[in-house]
């Protein structure tokens, strides 16, 4: 559990942040640049000074302006992975890995050097200097270096931002494994929605130095009122489903979720794997009766919960499909034509080809090893 209530005011930029949250798993601080997410992570790490407030982690006070507690960074027992890796150029990868480890007594070392080297696939890189490593390899060494401090919490400040897409795909699986395999909670800073969906369990949405919303990823990203911050064009619901079967003839995958079944373009995940998929609200249309003579494969019975409309052409409809929240964006004209109101039963029609690339969430252990030796 992390509890944060801090403010820091500077001429050009201020943060005033308050939230408390479970830390197990991956929590993303999400927001556009200038939203204060990096400032917040630096306040947690002790690299920046707050003006006032309180920060505690698992009941351990890191900072408290009233009792004048302000632990220096080296005593906060946090790991920090920087955007630019920041490996020490005069040391080999191994010496970098050991730098933090050696500064902590044996009794405090929860993680074993060999395990971390294995997990991150660093074995063949140990003798090299940072100048001889690729960007992705550097970032992996940096993650290992931070882990070997055996921190209570790992902070990651946009660790993928300076990498190209293939490198990102190379590192994402490593990060995703940290909470599960090393029992290492992570706070991850990002402005990329894709990373939020693929990685995190919880999200804290920040704008202009303030917390807009905080909670489970599914709940937060499905809230239409947050669409301006999560990206209006990409607004949609995130739903959890499991793979029920594959239709090889048509290259489709059948998913099951609380609202019923869902056909999507074929996924590579094995049957039974839990996935998280994002359905954009602009890809969902509504009908009062199940469609016939239509190309639409998915017609999911739902109940209208809420209608958010302003004076533009569009309206965002919040739907309930057996307990899962779905979002539909249709015209206001259609809202009136169909007589939509909270409580009305409708069918949500989702094109099978519109579903975003999902991310495997808490998949079977053997499946999580997929890209172990990629480099």
């Amino acid at each position, binding site marked *: 559990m992390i509890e944060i209530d801090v403010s820091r005011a500077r001429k050009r930029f201020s943060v005033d942040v308050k939230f408390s949250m479970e830390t197990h798993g991956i929590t993303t601080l999400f927001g556009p640049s200038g939203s204060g997410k990096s400032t917040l992570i630096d306040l947690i790490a002790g690299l920046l000074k707050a003006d006032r407030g309180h920060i505690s982690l698992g009941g351990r006070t890191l900072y408290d302006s009233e009792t004048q507690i302000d632990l*220096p*960074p080296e005593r906060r027992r946090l790991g920090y992975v920087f955007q630019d890796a920041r490996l020490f*150029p*005069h040391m080999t990868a191994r010496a970098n890995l050991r730098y933090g480890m050696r500064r902590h007594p044996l009794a405090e070392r929860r993680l074993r050097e060999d395990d971390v080297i294995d997990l991150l696939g660093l074995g063949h890189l140990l003798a*090299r200097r940072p100048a001889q490593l690729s960007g992705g390899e550097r970032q992996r060494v940096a993650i290992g*270096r931070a882990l070997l*401090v055996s921190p209570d919490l790992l902070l990651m400040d946009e660790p993928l931002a300076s990498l190209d897409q293939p490198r990102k795909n190379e590192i994402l699986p490593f990060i995703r494994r940290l909470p599960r395999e090393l029992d290492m909670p992570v706070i991850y800073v990002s402005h990329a929605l894709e990373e939020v969906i693929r990685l995190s369990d919880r999200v804290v949405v920040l704008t202009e130095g303030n917390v807009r919303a905080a909670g489970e990823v599914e709940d937060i990203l499905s809230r239409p009122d947050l669409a301006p911050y999560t990206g209006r064009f990409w607004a949609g619901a995130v739903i959890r489903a499991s793979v029920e079967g594959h239709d090889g003839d048509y290259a489709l995958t059948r998913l099951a979720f609380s609202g019923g079944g869902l056909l999507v373009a074929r996924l590579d995940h094995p049957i039974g794997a839990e996935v998280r998929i994002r359905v954009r609200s602009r890809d969902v249309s509504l009908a009062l009766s199940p469609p016939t003579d239509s190309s639409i494969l998915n017609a999911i019975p739902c109940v209208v919960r809420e209608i958010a409309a302003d004076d533009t052409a569009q309206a965002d409809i919040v739907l309930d499909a057996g307990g899962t929240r779905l979002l539909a964006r249709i015209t206001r004209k259609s809202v009136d034509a169909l007589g939509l109101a909270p409580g009305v039963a409708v069918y949500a029609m989702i094109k099978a080809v519109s579903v975003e690339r999902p991310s495997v969430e808490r998949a079977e252990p053997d499946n999580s090893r997929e890209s172990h030796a990629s480099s």
Partner: protein
Amino acid sequence: MFELTPLESEALGLSLRVGFWAVLGSLPLGLFVAWLLVRVEFPGRTIVNGLVHLPLVLPPVVVGYLLLVLLGRNGPVGSLFYDWFGWTFAFTWQGATIASAVVAFPLMVRSIRLGLELVDRRLETAARTLGATRLDAFWTVTVPLVLPGILTGAVLAFARSIGEFGATITFVSNIPGQTQTLPLALYTVTQSPGGDQAALRLVLISCILAFAALAASELLARHVKRRLLGGSA
């Protein structure tokens, strides 16, 4: 073939001793002052910067005279020394070392400073998050990366010390075996009739010494660079 006379070997030994101690003694202070000028924002930084560079632009004779006034037997600092320890810098090799150190100090600070400015401060921040205290981070991350600058500074300062003349002769005079370094010995023989031969020999010794210092610094710098950053293959 080339046998040193007692005067020559005395002057050479003294020069080496003075240069060695001048560099070693001013190294910690040089590192500190360079760090202060690069890393710390404080009022009066310009003044400190000016003071450090003063010996570079002042005539060495002026530096020597100021040292004499300050550290001489009757100077404000020198008299305290004499009262406490019954000892004075005047006419001693230690005094010559101080004169050399002061004159060479700006060169030392300049190259350490240049090196320090090239080191990414954020590496120290990274070290802090890994459990290093501020001082620990400085010694284990920054200093190794500034090592090339420190070595260059040390060699430059050593060379400058070996060549020091004006401040030394003004502050501690020209006493064989005590303060008569190579340049002072050279000056002495050129003042005596028929000293051309001796002068030539001293010039030769000075040149060999200078080349040796340069070569040593070049080798060291190359070695350090390789050790620090590794090959690029």
